[in-house]
Structure formats: structure tokens, C-alpha cells
């Protein structure tokens, strides 16, 4: 039973605040993800302005189911703002954003979007430093996340197994009881990827996954992301061109809030417009 839910229904619909701010208390079971057209994400004509500055300018982007897509672009091109729009942190001034055929992202709050199956890894690793590695994964685990459920919830053997699996995948088995705050930078990045896996999302948004990683760690991250594609759709924002080259099949270049070019890494790198705005000078 969810008390807030019960209470908010007492208020007439027309008096309830706008959906995004208001229904944060309501349990919302999004309709199942419909991938019948093989496209997991539709962004169309998205515009976001901050004080007159257009962070996104009629951005249109489609991501196919199971695809691994890299997004590159100079600073201020709107990469992070785009992620904010998809995950519900920022609401666009205009445009539409659909998750599969049936889920309208613009009417949903952050937790609803997360529960619907979109996971996000932030640029700066943000793990819960006062919690242990194990507890971080437990927190991120997919499932009913309502208050009363959590008060009495115990981990089932299957869930414990799943956490152990992920600990193995991200190479932190030895550290399961350690506070996340004492991990190295690279380990935190991995833990965050592990948390993303626990959420079992359909679409993973990964912001600069290899920033601050050693070459070995970078290599393992590339392997991991490649292994995820297919089962999940993955969108990676990254500056490291070598890394992008090692994982990308399809690259999208953002510039001043809209798509400048799209294609394979070689096509994109040889596109004169991209060379001009992004690479600055011809590579030699």
C-alpha cells in the first residue's frame, strides 16, 4: 500500500499540479516497452534554452534497438543536456521524446523513466560513498521500489546471485564489503557501470565512461560495453577518440545543439564540416 498515492487521488484531477511535478507520489507502471519498429529512442525537434542560450536546437536523433551509438562533439555541443532531457532532469521547450513506440518520456519524472528502463551513468562517478559496494548494487537493483516494499524487503537467493554475478563482471568481488568512498577512481567508474547493470535497463546512457581510467581499465570498459550491445541499446558520450574508434559502429556528431553528421567513425572523421568544428585542425 502506498499512502501518498491514496492521498493524492483525493484531489480533483484539475487541481493536481502538472504531471511531472505532481505525480512523483503516484505509483506509475509504464506500459511495456514496444520495440516493434526496432527503434528504442526517438528524439525529434528537441529545443532547450537556458536564459536565451540554445543548448539544444531542434535536435533529432534515433537510436536503434541493440545498437551501440557514440556521441561526440566539442564542449557545449549539448551532449549532457541531451542526456538530461532523456532522463527527465531537464524539460525541453519543444519537441518530442519517445522510448519505444508507446512511452512518452516528456510526461514522466526521473524515477519513472529509470523504472521504465533507461539507466544513466554520470560523467563524474557518483556512487554512494557511505554505502558498501554490495549495498550500492543492492540499491540499484531492478524491482518494486516503493516505500513499504523496501521497509520489509529481504534479498532473495536469486537477487544475491545476481549481485555476485555483477560483482564478478565489474571485477569488484574482493571489495564487496568496502565502502564505495574508498575505491579508486577507476573502480568507482566500474561500480557505477555495475549499478547500471543491476537496473537491467533497455537503454544505457553512458557519459564519459573512461575519463581518468588507465589504458588497461579503458580496454576492459570497451569490452564490457561491446558485450552489452545487442542485449541492450547503449549510447556513449565520449571525448577519447581512440576509445570511440575501438567501440563505435555508428557515430553521431553534435554541434551547437543539433546533429552535424552521422555515420561510421571513418566517414565522420573525414567529413570536412566535422573536421572544421570538432577536430579543429586536420589530423596528421
Amino acid at each position, binding site marked *: 500500500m502506498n499512502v501518498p498515492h491514496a492521498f493524492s487521488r483525493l484531489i480533483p484531477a484539475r487541481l493536481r499540479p502538472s504531471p511531472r511535478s505532481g505525480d512523483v507520489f503516484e505509483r506509475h507502471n509504464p506500459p511495456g516497452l514496444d520495440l516493434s519498429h526496432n527503434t528504442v529512442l526517438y528524439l525529434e525537434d528537441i529545443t532547450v534554452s537556458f536564459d536565451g542560450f540554445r543548448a539544444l536546437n531542434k535536435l533529432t536523433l534515433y537510436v536503434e534497438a541493440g545498437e551501440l551509438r557514440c556521441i561526440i562533439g566539442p564542449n557545449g555541443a549539448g551532449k549532457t543536456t541531451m542526456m538530461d532531457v532523456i532522463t527527465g532532469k531537464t524539460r525541453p521547450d519543444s519537441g518530442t521524446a519517445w522510448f519505444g513506440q508507446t512511452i512518452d518520456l516528456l510526461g514522466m519524472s526521473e524515477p519513472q523513466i529509470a523504472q521504465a528502463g533507461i539507466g*544513466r551513468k554520470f560523467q563524474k562517478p557518483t556512487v*554512494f560513498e557511505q554505502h558498501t559496494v554490495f549495498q550500492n548494487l543492492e540499491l540499484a537493483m531492478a524491482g518494486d521500489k516503493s516505500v513499504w516494499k523496501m521497509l520489509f524487503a529481504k534479498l532473495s537467493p536469486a537477487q544475491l546471485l545476481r549481485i555476485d554475478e555483477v560483482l564478478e563482471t565489474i571485477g569488484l568481488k574482493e571489495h564487496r*564489503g568496502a565502502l564505495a568512498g*574508498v575505491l579508486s577512481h577507476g573502480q568507482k567508474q566500474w561500480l557505477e557501470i555495475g549499478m547500471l547493470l543491476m537496473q537491467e535497463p533497455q537503454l544505457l546512457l553512458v557519459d564519459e565512461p573512461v575519463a581518468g581510467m588507465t589504458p588497461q581499465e579503458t580496454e576492459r570498459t570497451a569490452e564490457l560495453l561491446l558485450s552489452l550491445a545487442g542485449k541492450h541499446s547503449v549510447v556513449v558520450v565520449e571525448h577519447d577518440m581512440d576509445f570511440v574508434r575501438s567501440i563505435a559502429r555508428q557515430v553521431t556528431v553534435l554541434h551547437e545543439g543539433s546533429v552535424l553528421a552521422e555515420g561510421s567513425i571513418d566517414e565522420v572523421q573525414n567529413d570536412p564540416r566535422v573536421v572544421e568544428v570538432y577536430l579543429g585542425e586536420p589530423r596528421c
Partner: protein
Amino acid sequence: MTFMERLLAWRNERGAFGFYAVLLATAVLVPLLNLAVPEGSPLHMSTYTVTLVGKYMSYAILAVAVDLIWGYCGILSLGHSAFFALGGYAMGMYLMRQIGTRGVYGNAELPDFMVFLNWSELPWYWQGFDMFWFAAIMVLLAPGLLAYVFGWLAFRSRVTGVYLSIITQALTYALLLAFFRNEMGFGGNNGLTDFKEILGFDLKAPGTRMALFLATALALGVAFAAGRMITGSRLGRVVQAVRDAESRTRFIGYRVESYKLWLFVFSAMLAGVAGALYVPQVGIINPGEFSPINSIEVVIWVAVGGRGTLYGAVLGAVVVNYAKTWFTTVLPDIWLYALGTLFVVVTLFLPQGLVGLISKLKLRRGAA
């Protein structure tokens, strides 16, 4: 587990164990010294002292309530004495109705202050308070409902940090002003007092005092155990995640507002229970209990004891209130300065409070 974590876990267990041991010892020793030891003996504990300890324990319940939301969820409520006072008023209304014809005016239907105001009948919101069970429900419901409405509005609008603290101060101050008004029907400036009996027992009798003391001890034990259960559950870990990184918690799919609201309402109800146990022991409830400074004092207790441990809050409530009793008897003018100094010293030098100091000293001794 690393050494440091094992140490932290052990400290936590030891603290809880110590709390239960001290509470049990108090609950056994105080009645013994009060009832079994003859009055002339130097070991005899006066009924006054019994009531004083009972009062400290009701404060300790309030401190646990504040620690739950501040120490674990990071919501710094500077208005928790409002919930405490509401619980107290609910109990006070019951005690008023028990006076019956023994009031100054001998009116069986109306409390004295209403006769004095020339009211002819009992207001609707006083109906039912002659029944203990009804009052007991109101002790939980009144603070709970206020916390629900307030929290629903505040958390939904994502009011956090210092802004939230300020509006909680405004909340308790508004209630202070409202309860001061005679027209409100809660006794105005004088509040509710001159109580005679509770559940048919004379409030002045040592036996009743002892029963109230033991009830408070039991309530403190239950509040502490419930707090440990909540903070040790998965819900507790979500709440601590909200404290450390609120928006991150949102992005992994938790409705942060619901969690905050749930804990805030629980904490307010706990504060109401504390107030309800406080009133029959001190014999009065007046609007002064709503004053903003009271709520700030509670936060100081928790800070002094050490937040985020629950037993630290209990320790802080007892230590600071004992100091307050001592100061206001011996050096009444100094108390507020002492309280202020204490807060500054704790903030600057003891961020973990007394609990942190104790474990630090232990570590140092272990290392030497």
C-alpha cells in the same frame, strides 16, 4: 570486510547494546530506589527526581525522532517541537476532560478556561477527548497529518537544505502564535494545566508517577528499536542514499519524495508520542512548547550526542538536559550562553558528537 568497517559495525552494535543495558538498569534501579528504599536513606530517590528522569526520557524519544530524519535522511527540521507540542496538547485535552467537576468553576461540561471565556458549549474539536483511546489516536494523528500535508507540499516542490529548515521554523512559529490566541480554544497563553488524574489514577500519587516513568522508558526502548529496524532495512539504506546524493537516488528509480515523506511522518508521530508522555509528567502544556528555540535545542542535543547513530541522540538529550537543569538552578543567567558555546564547540571540534569523541579516544588508546 576491512578493519575500519568492522570497527564501525562493532561500534554501532556496542552502542545499541549499551543503550539497552542502561535503559534496563534505569528502569529497574529507579523504581527500587524510589519505592523500596525508605525515605530517610541517602540512597532514596525522590519522586521529583523520578519525574525528572522521565522527562529526560521523553526528550530522548524526541531526539531519536529528529536523528531519524536529520542524521539518516539529511532533512534538518527546525520545527520538530511543533509535533511534540501537538502530541502534548492531544494528551493535555484528555487530561482536561478528566478534571470533570473538580475545576475552579465546577463545570462538568467545560474546562475552566472556557467557562472564563463565557463559552456555552464544548467546541467540536474537543469532542471525543474524554476517551483515552481517542486521545491516544489523536496523539499520533494530529502530528502525523500536519507532517503529511507539510511534507507533501515541501518535498514535492523539492524544497531542501536551509530553505526547508527555515520553513519548518516558520511552521512552528505560526502554530505558536495560533495557540496563543484564546479564540483557538486551547487555553491561550496559559495552555492546559491543573490536571487531576489519568485513566482514573491520581496524577500526584507516587505510584502513578512511577507508572508514567516506566511507560516512558518502554516507549523509548520501542522507539529506539523501531528506529534501528528502519535504518537497518533496505528502506534505511535508500534513505541514507537520499541524504548523500538525492538526485542520483532519483536516477536509479526511487521516488525520493515518498521516502522523505514517509520518514518525516513517522518521525513526527514519534515526536507526538514523546509530547504525550511529557505532559502528564510535567503537568502543563502551553504554547511556549511551540517556540522556535525549542526545536533548535533538540537539534543541538542530537549534534552534541552525535547524529546518525540513534543512541548518540539519546545520550545528547540526557546530557544537555541534565546540564540545563543544573545551570538553570545554579547559574540561570549563563544557560543560553553555555548552550550556544556548546553548539559552537561541537560544530567546530566534534563533528561526530560525544559518540565520535568516545570512539576516537578508544582508537587512540588502542594505537598507543
